[in-house]
């Protein structure tokens, strides 16, 4: 268990510092790269929790596909370096206030619910197998069939919309 704990602490440090780096960097490409690192550390968290499928999906979808498109757009627009002056002066105090509220809530919940969290057992070894994936597929196509289908239709609509927007209009 101690190895897991050490790994977790190192990863937590990395993920928090990459998240901070993403927010504080004035170069948008560096911000995007920090975010990629953050996604990868989150994937390793999933591995620590015994969910290899979600970890791999996280890397493939978020780090591999979505962030590449983000980088693509940033580079094509040529707006890599942000101006030093602050355009939204009200943003920083508001963000600080909301972050403080979130931190207070998190600490409160941690203190109140500490006992029940401690009772959470470590993930079962049986979860870490192919059967888990098979079960997930079955559940997706039976219990959660409607949300699954609605999501796929939503994605299809978005795809058709993107294609229509890029088409030249015929005069």
């Amino acid at each position, binding site marked *: 268990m101690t190895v897991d704990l050490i790994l977790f602490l190192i990863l937590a440090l990395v993920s928090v510092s990459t998240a901070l780096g993403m927010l504080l960097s004035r170069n948008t490409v560096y911000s995007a790269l920090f975010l990629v690192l953050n996604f990868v550390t989150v994937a390793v968290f999933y591995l620590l929790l015994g969910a290899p499928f979600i970890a791999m999906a996280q*890397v493939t979808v978020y780090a*591999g*596909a979505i962030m590449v498109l983000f*980088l*693509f757009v940033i580079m094509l627009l040529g707006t890599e370096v942000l101006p030093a002056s602050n355009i939204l002066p009200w943003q920083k105090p508001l963000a600080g206030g909301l972050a403080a509220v979130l931190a207070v809530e998190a600490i409160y919940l941690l203190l109140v619910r500490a006992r029940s969290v401690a009772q959470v057992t470590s993930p079962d070894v049986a979860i870490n197998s192919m059967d888990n994936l098979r079960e997930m597929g079955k559940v997706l196509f039976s219990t959660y069939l409607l949300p699954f289908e609605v999501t796929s239709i939503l994605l299809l609509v978005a795809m058709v919309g993107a294609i229509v927007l890029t088409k030249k209009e015929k005069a």
Partner: protein
Amino acid sequence: MDWTFWLEWVLKGFVLCLVLLTGFAYLTYYERRALARMQNRIGPNRAGPQGLLQPIADAVKLFFKEELTPARAYKIVFFLAPIVTVVPSLIIAAVIPWGTSFQLFGRTITLYVADINVGVLYLMSIASIAVYGIVLAGWSSNNKYAMLGGMRSSAQMISYELALGLSFVTAILLANSMRMIDIVNAQSSWWFVVIQPVGALIFWIATLAEVNRAPFDMPEAEQELTAGYHAEYSGMKFALFFMAEYQKMIVICAILATLFFGGYLGPFVDKFWFLGPVYMFAKVFILLFFMIWVRATWPRIRYDRLMSFGWKVLVPLALAVVFITATGILLAQELNNQLYFWAIPFVSIVAAGIAVMMIYRELRRKAYERA
């Protein structure tokens, strides 16, 4: 978790890296000799017997070349990009099984580094990470040709990843598992290339685009972009890009051999463990020859056609092939009739034939409109 376990792990990883690095050096020699033979030349034959020391001479040359960094480059990313390109090409090989297992000092030593139950997904995720090195190299050079090369490669790799993923799905369906070992063992009676030839073909085309090989070597099209994303790189940094490309070729051929050509399986492989790597090497060697052959035969295809081929032909065809495979397996299971299973290759080939006919008609129509 005793120390011998760690020792075995480290040693296997070390040997795998060594094999890939030596393989890279001699793949350049192999490619140059084979290309020369096809173009009626002799090729490198001066350094050592039959030019066998040529890769070493090249390596020494690259070590001593001067390294240049453009004055307005983004220095940190410029330095990191070659590393980000090489590392995925090395670690992706970790899940490929090279053989069965053997006994040494009373321990069973298996011939793969990692055996994870989502092996195929691991391949997908590492392949999708591999785009970053090229994109970042293009951007950090602060050069418009390099930038265009990086853009092209990222668009191309993302587009062809879809067809690649779908052809992985056919192999997963046939093996009923995502573990690489299970996929190899499922091919003990029939190789998957026999059951799903179109899936193997789609995999082959998509991977040629993934590793930026001819005829899909858009990111470094010399006539248009000088050298594309690595135009500003020199010396050892350039060598790292070169290394990544050739290592990816080896690894891709090994993956193709594992998923569709029976992996390390061959006659007597369960009696003598050392035959596994030998068969694997022979299969990779033959598949690499096809890659070189393609490069010697086909001219580079135009960029807009590359994209429309990926999106309008390969992805729908791959979807159809996945559908045909799944339906065939299900019907064979439910109706208990193997005839449906053996209909899969024929129906897939018919689907591929329809796709080819549609491309042909489209090209004819375009030629007619132009005339």
